[in-house]
C-alpha cells in the first residue's frame, strides 16, 4: 500500500468520521482531566494513616521503654555505688555501716536510712568518764587536765559523724527520687505500650474502621505541570483511539461507500446515489409536501 493511498485513506477517515475522532479525543481529555482531579479515598487514607500512626507509636514506645530501662538501671547503680562508697568510708573511720536496712528499704518514700551503728559504741561511756573526771580531785590537778584533753577528741567525733551521715542521706534521697521517677516513667510507658498492643491485637480492623472527615493533607495528585501533561496525553490517546475506531468503521465490513466501489463490486452500473435524507428532504425529492402525500406514500418503508 503506497503512502499516497494511506494518506488518502486517512483523509477519508478524518473527513467522514471527524465527529467520532473529535468525540474520542474530547472523551480522552475529559477522562485524563478527571483522573488528575481525583481525590484519594478519604476513609481508606485515614485508615492507612491510623494504622501507620499506631505502628509508629509502638516503635516510639519501644525506644522510650529502652531508654527508661537504662535510666532506671543507672539510678540503681548510682545508689549501690553510693552505699558501697559510704560503707568503705565508714569502715575506714572505724564506723560500721549497716547496709541491710538501706537495701531493704528499696523504693520506700523515705528512702534508705543509713545508720552508723559503730558510732554509739565509743561515745556511750564518755559522759560517765566526763563525770568521773569532774569529781574533786583526790590526787593532783595535773591528772584532771590530762583527763580533759583526753576527753576533748572523743567529744568532737559525733559531730563529724553526724555531718557525714547527713550528706550521705541527702545523696541517697536524691538518687532514690531519681530512681522513683525512672520507675514511674517505665511503668507508664509499659502501660501505654500494653494498651497500644492490645488495641491492635484484639481488634485489628479498628484502625481501618476509623473515618477521617477532613481532607487528608497528603499530596497524592500530580502537580500542575504534570496535570497538563496527563491531560494532553489523554487527549492524544483519545485522538488515536478515535482514529483507530474510525478507520475500522470506515474500512471494515466490506461495505460499498461510493458508486465506484458498488459498480466495481457488483459489476452493474450505478443509476444514482442517495445520501441520508431527513423526512423533509425525502419529500423534496419526491416533489411534494408530506401533507399532500397519500398516507401510504407519506410513510414509506
Amino acid at each position, binding site marked *: 500500500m503506497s503512502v499516497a493511498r494511506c494518506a488518502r485513506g486517512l483523509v477519508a477517515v478524518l473527513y467522514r468520521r471527524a465527529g467520532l475522532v473529535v468525540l474520542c479525543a474530547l472523551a480522552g481529555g475529559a477522562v485524563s482531566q478527571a483522573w488528575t482531579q481525583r481525590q484519594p479515598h478519604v476513609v481508606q487514607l485515614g485508615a492507612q494513616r491510623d494504622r501507620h500512626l499506631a505502628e509508629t507509636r509502638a516503635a516510639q514506645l519501644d525506644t522510650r521503654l529502652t531508654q527508661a530501662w537504662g535510666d532506671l538501671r543507672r539510678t540503681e547503680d548510682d545508689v549501690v555505688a553510693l552505699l558501697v562508697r559510704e560503707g568503705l568510708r565508714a569502715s575506714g573511720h572505724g564506723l560500721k555501716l549497716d547496709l541491710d536496712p538501706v537495701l531493704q528499704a528499696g523504693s520506700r518514700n523515705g528512702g534508705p536510712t543509713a545508720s552508723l551503728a559503730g558510732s554509739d559504741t565509743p561515745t556511750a561511756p564518755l559522759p560517765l568518764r566526763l563525770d568521773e573526771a569532774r569529781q574533786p580531785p583526790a590526787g593532783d590537778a595535773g591528772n584532771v587536765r590530762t583527763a580533759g584533753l583526753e576527753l576533748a577528741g572523743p567529744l568532737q567525733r559525733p559531730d563529724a559523724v553526724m555531718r557525714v551521715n547527713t550528706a550521705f542521706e541527702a545523696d541517697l534521697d536524691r538518687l532514690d527520687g531519681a530512681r522513683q521517677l525512672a520507675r514511674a516513667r517505665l511503668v507508664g510507658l509499659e502501660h501505654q505500650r500494653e494498651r497500644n498492643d492490645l488495641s491492635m491485637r484484639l481488634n485489628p480492623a479498628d484502625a481501618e474502621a476509623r473515618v477521617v472527615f477532613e481532607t487528608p493533607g497528603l499530596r497524592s495528585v500530580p502537580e500542575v505541570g504534570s496535570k497538563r501533561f496527563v491531560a494532553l496525553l489523554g487527549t492524544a490517546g483519545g485522538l488515536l483511539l478515535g482514529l483507530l475506531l474510525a478507520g475500522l468503521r470506515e474500512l471494515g465490513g466490506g461495505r*460499498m461507500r461510493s458508486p465506484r466501489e458498488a459498480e466495481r463490486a*457488483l459489476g452493474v452500473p450505478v443509476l444514482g446515489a442517495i445520501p441520508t435524507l431527513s423526512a423533509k428532504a425525502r419529500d423534496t425529492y419526491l416533489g411534494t409536501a408530506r401533507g399532500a402525500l397519500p398516507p401510504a406514500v407519506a410513510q414509506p418503508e
Partner: protein
Amino acid sequence: MKMAHDPALFTRIGLGVLEHLGSPSLPDSEGNTPALSGRVILVSSAHAGEGKSFVAQGLAHALAEQQEGDVVWVDAAFDTPLVEADISRRGAAGLSEIMTLGSLQGLAPAGWGPERLWRLGRGVLAQRSLLFRPEAVRKGLMALRAGFALTVLDAPSLGSCGALLAEVDAGVLVVDARRTSRHDALQALAEARFDRERLAGIVLNHRPRPIPRWLGGD
C-alpha cells in the same frame, strides 16, 4: 453537513432504467400499440428496509414525467407489514386481488406527481406465498402490462420476490451503503438467480458523505 439537494437524481435514475429497457414496442402501420406492451420494473434489495419504497416512488414519479404512457406504482412488498394509514384504503382491492381473481380493482390516482401516475395497493389477499405462484404472478402482471406503459413494483427483498424475478423486464437493486456489504449483495443476487442482463443498475442509498476532489476524493 447539509447535503445538497439534487433535483435531477430520480430523473437520472429513470433515464438509466429507460435506457436499459430500450425503445418500447413500436406501433404497427395502423398506429395501434401492440397489446401487453407495458413493461414492468422491479425495485428490490438484498434485505428489507434498505429504502426500496422511497426509490420506487421516486422512480415512478420520474418515469411518469419522462414518457407519455401511464405509470403505476404497485405495492408488492407482501413480506412487510401493511403501512396503509389511510382508513379508506384499508380493505381495498389491490395487486393480490388481480393475481387471484384477475379483476383490476383498487386502482387510484397516486395523488402526487403527474396525472399519469397511479398507485395500487397490495390488497387484502396479499400473502408472501402468493408471489411464489408463477401463474398468479403472470396473471397479475399481464393485467398491469395491458393497462399501463410502465409498472414500478415496490417489491420485497430479493429472497421473497419468488416468481416476480422471472416475469419483470428490468430490475433495480437498492443497496444501503451503511448496512449491506458487497458480499451480502452478491449472495442475494446469486441466491435469487436473477438474470444480470435484466438488472438495470444499482441505487446506492444512504451514501456516505463524498470526499471532495480537493481532498483527493473521487
